[in-house]
C-alpha cells in the first residue's frame, strides 16, 4: 500500500484475554498491531484457535478488549463515552458472520432482519422508504424483491449469506468485517458469494477485514494478508508476497499444506514441516513485526533480522534465475 493512502483502521497492541486472573487464563489475542487502508481488503488467516475470530470480534466491540488501542477513522474507539458514540461507530463498521443459519433470527422476516439497522439509526422516513431500501438491498445482493416478506428458513445457505450481507450493507457502512463468510457454503456457492463481495467492494468503495482459514480464497480476495498463530501476528504483507515469498516458517508450512486441484502438482508436492517451538520468546530478545522488504513484515527479534533478510534475498535471487513462464 502506498504511504499516502489513508489509514481507516489502526490496531495497536490489541490484547484480548479470557478468564483474566484465573489459572486457566487464555491469551486469545496477544498484542497484535496492524493497519488497514482505505478501500483495501485485509485478509486475516490462521488455523482454528489462532485468535482470528476473536480479533475481529474485539475490533467491532463484541468483546471489550483487555488492552490496546483501536483507532477507526482517526478516532479512538477502544471504549465509548456515550451511546451516541457507539451508534456512530456501528453505523460505519458492520459484520458478516460465519454461520448464516445461526446469525439470522428465525422469527423475523427478511425485511425486519435487514431493516433492523435502518430502524436503529433512523435512516428511513416512513414505512414505504424502509421497504424500498430493503428491496433495493435485496436486489443488490442478487435476491428478489418479493423475498422481503419471507423467513430465513425458506432460503438456502448461499441465499442466507446474501441476506447477511444485505443486513450489513443496510446502514451504509464504510468498513465490513467478514468472519469466515463462505466456509459454511458449498464450493459452487462460495465463488458466487466471494464475487458478490468483490463487486460490492468496487461499487461502494468498501474496506474489508476478511477473516478465513481457507488460504486460497483469502489470497484471491485480499490485497494484503496477516498470518495469525497462537494469538500473534507472525507475518504481514501484500498478498502475493506472502504467498510467493513467505518469510516465516509457519507461513511456509501453511502454504505447503493447501491442497491444489491439480493431480500432477499433488504428486510432487513437498510439505514443509513446522516446529512451533521457534515461536518461544527468548529472554532479552523481544520480538515484534519488522519490515524485511517494502511492506512485508515478519515477527522477529533484532538477532533474527538478518536471517529473514537473507531469506528474502534468496527469493529475489531465485526469481532472477528462473525467468517467468
Amino acid at each position, binding site marked *: 500500500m502506498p504511504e499516502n493512502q489513508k489509514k481507516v483502521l489502526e490496531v495497536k497492541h490489541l490484547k484480548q484475554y479470557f478468564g483474566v486472573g484465573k489459572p486457566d487464563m487464555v491469551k486469545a489475542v496477544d498484542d497484535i498491531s496492524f493497519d488497514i487502508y482505505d478501500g483495501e481488503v485485509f485478509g486475516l488467516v490462521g*488455523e*482454528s484457535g489462532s485468535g482470528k475470530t476473536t480479533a475481529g470480534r474485539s475490533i467491532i466491540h463484541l468483546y471489550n478488549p483487555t488492552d490496546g488501542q483501536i483507532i477507526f477513522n482517526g478516532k479512538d474507539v477502544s471504549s465509548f463515552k456515550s451511546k451516541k458514540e457507539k451508534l456512530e461507530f456501528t453505523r460505519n463498521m458492520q459484520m458478516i458472520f460465519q454461520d448464516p443459519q445461526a446469525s439470522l433470527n428465525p422469527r423475523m422476516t427478511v425485511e425486519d432482519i435487514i431493516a433492523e439497522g435502518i430502524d436503529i439509526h433512523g435512516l428511513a422516513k416512513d414505512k414505504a422508504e424502509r421497504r424500498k431500501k430493503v428491496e433495493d438491498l435485496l436486489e443488490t445482493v442478487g435476491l428478489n424483491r418479493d423475498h422481503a416478506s419471507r423467513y430465513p428458513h425458506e432460503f*438456502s445457505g*448461499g*441465499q442466507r449469506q446474501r441476506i447477511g450481507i444485505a443486513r450489513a450493507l443496510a446502514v451504509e457502512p464504510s468498513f465490513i468485517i467478514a468472519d469466515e463468510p463462505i466456509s459454511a457454503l*458449498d*464450493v*459452487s*456457492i*462460495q*465463488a*458466487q458469494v*466471494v*464475487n458478490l463481495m468483490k463487486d460490492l467492494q468496487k461499487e461502494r468503495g468498501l474496506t474489508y477485514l476478511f477473516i478465513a*482459514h481457507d*488460504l*486460497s*480464497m483469502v*489470497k*484471491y480476495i485480499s490485497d494484503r494478508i496477516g498470518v495469525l498463530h497462537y494469538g500473534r501476528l507472525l507475518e504481514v504483507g501484500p498478498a502475493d508476497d506472502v*504467498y510467493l515469498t513467505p518469510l516465516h516458517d509457519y507461513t511456509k*508450512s*501453511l*502454504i505447503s*499444506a*493447501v*491442497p*491444489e*486441484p*491439480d*493431480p*500432477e*502438482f*499433488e504428486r510432487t*508436492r513437498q*510439505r514443509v514441516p*513446522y516446529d512451533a517451538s521457534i515461536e518461544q520468546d527468548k529472554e532479552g530478545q523481544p520480538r515484534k513485526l519488522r519490515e524485511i522488504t517494502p511492506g512485508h513484515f515478519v515477527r522477529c527479534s533484532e538477532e533474527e533480522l538478518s536471517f529473514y533478510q537473507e531469506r528474502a534475498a534468496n527469493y529475489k535471487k531465485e526469481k532472477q534465475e528462473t525467468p517467468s513462464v
Partner: protein
Amino acid sequence: MGERILDVNNLEINFHTYAGDVKAIRDVSFHLDKGETLAIVGESGSGKSVTTKSLMGLLANNARVVGGSIMYHDEDILKKSEKQMQDIRGKDIAMIFQDPMTSLDPTMKIGRQIAEPLMKHKNVEKKKALAQALEILKLVGIDHAEERINEYPHQFSGGQRQRIVIAIALVCYPEILIADEPTTALDVTIQAQILDLMKELQQKIETSIIFITHDLGVVAGMADRVAVMYAGQIIEYGSVDEIFYNPQHPYTWGLLNSMPTLNSTDLQAIPGTPPDLLDPPKGDPFAARNPYAMKIDEKEKPPFFKVSETHFASTWLLHPDAPKITPPDEIVRRKKIFKKMQANVN
C-alpha cells in the same frame, strides 16, 4: 488395478417427506477395485453421502431403496438383514465420519472404543484386543500411546480424534473403507497429516477407499478414480487425470472453475442453485445452470458417452451432432496439459 470388489448397479433411493418423495439417488452405478481410491465429488444434496450410507446399511428411516443392487462378493448388500449387516459393518466395510467430535463415545476410554470391533467381530478376548488397540494407536501416530489409551475423547485435539476414528475403522483390516469428508472439520496442516496417514495405511493393509468430499484439492491428492455427482446422479467419471485435465461435463468445468488456487486471479462462479429433487428435471439436471445447455438438455437425459476406456460423461455435448464449443479458459488450459501427458505416454 486389482479385482473388482464392489459393484453398484442402477441404485435408486427416495426419501419420504411430508412434501412428497425426494428422489435423492437416481440411477447411480459405479464399481470399486481392490486397493484403489475412488473419490465421489459433489455438493451438499448431490447424494454422495446417501450413496455411501446405503453401502453401510445406515440409511435413515424414511429412506427407501426403490431399485438397483449393491454387489459385494457376489451378494447383494441391499438384501441383507440388519443382523447380517452388523457382521459386515466395521469388519469388512468400515467408515470414517466427517466430525470427529461427534463420532466418538464421550463416556468410553478410547482404548476400549478401538478394541470393541475386535471383540465384537473377531471374538478376540479383551486383553488381546486392548493390546492390538495399542498397536494401531501407535500406527496412527498418537504419541505416548501407552498412557493415552486410557484417556477419554475430550482429552484429545480434533486431529488426534480423527486419528482415533481412523484407528477404530481400520482395526479389523476392512476390505473397504468409506471416508465421508474425513478432513473437512480440520485445519489445513492437520488435514495434510491425516491424508498422508490414510495413504500410508492404505498401502499397509491393502484396503480400498471410497473418499467422499467436495474439495477438489483433496481429491487431486488422494484419488485414483473420480466420480462427479450432481442432483442425485453421477454425471462424469474417469481416472483422476482424466477428470482434472480432460473434463467433459459442463458441471465438472464449473466446479474446477470455481475453486480458487493459489494462482487464480478470476473466479467463475456457477450461477443459480441445484434443482429441487422433489421434482427433478427431466433432462440433464445441470441444464438450468449450464451456459452451454442445448434444447435437448431440457427434454432428455443424456446417456453416458465414452471418452476413453475408463472415462465416461453424461452430456449431450459429446453427441456426434452436437455443435463444437470452446470450454472456459481454465478448462482449455487443463486440456493442454492432458495432451502433453498423452504425448509423453505415446
